[in-house]
């Protein structure tokens, strides 16, 4: 069975994200959305994974994220989740 798995890669807290800061300061806050307290831009990767269960699909993707360094653990946090 095919499972749609999503990988989101974001800069860690403490690692500056100039694109997110610019969108926040120069677009969102400038247009009055002061309730938005922070903005982070990341990378979104969607994968269709053949596996018996969702959990197996997630485990497979987690493993490849680590082994192939799909994210850089020095500067990034990664989130692996099922679509929907």
């Amino acid at each position, binding site marked *: 069975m095919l499972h749609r798995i999503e990988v989101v890669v974001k800069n860690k807290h403490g690692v500056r994200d100039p694109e997110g800061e610019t969108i926040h300061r120069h677009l969102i806050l400038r247009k009055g959305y002061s309730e938005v307290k922070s903005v982070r831009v990341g990378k979104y990767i969607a994968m269709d994974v053949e596996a018996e269960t969702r959990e197996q699909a997630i485990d497979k993707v987690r493993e490849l994220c680590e082994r192939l360094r799909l994210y850089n653990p*020095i500067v990034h946090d990664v989130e692996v989740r099922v679509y929907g």
Partner: protein
Amino acid sequence: MVKFPGTNCDEDVFHAARSVGLEPEVVWYKYFRPSSWDAIIIPGGFSYGDWLRAGAIAARTSAADSLYEARDSGAPIMGICNGFQILVEAGLLPGALLPNVGGRFVCRWVKLYVERPRGPWLKVLGDGDRLDMPVAHGEGRYYIDNESYYATVVKSPVLRYADGWNPNGSIYNIAGVATEDGAILGLMPHPERAYTDLLAPRGFTPGGKILFKSLADSLRKGW
């Protein structure tokens, strides 16, 4: 010199290396065997189009895997610009390189100075010596956490941007780092674009040739 798909500074490095009497060759990454060479340079460019992250895909090729053998044998390895990005992505040098803090590609000459120069690439320099070279990169913001910085970088040779010359927001003005013995060096500035007077604009002196000279001298006499 290892050439990956998207490497584009190999010819410039070739000329710079030849200018000091070295005998360089450009080797396509699929045919690269480190044991055949006295020293290895990974030139700049945009390997794999900088997709995923600059250097991230090249760092997972078998050519990059073979660099660990080269490291273990003590061979001199230098990564320039994208080559530096590949070396940090491969874990051969500490830290990471992030998109510039200004959000844009920067291409200009900068002033640098060196600390604790040693090893094949830097041995002919003195502590604090100043060097000028151009940078040209979109992802050159060096980042390292404090713990690793004090555990590695402060004991090793390092190149820093002089005050006011940091083009990308690098932490501690870091332009280049090396292993403790200096055998592996990575730097964002381009020594090959600063190997002769003709290349240096007014107000700058060509600070790149000394690295190639240092290598030539080291390969003859040791380091």
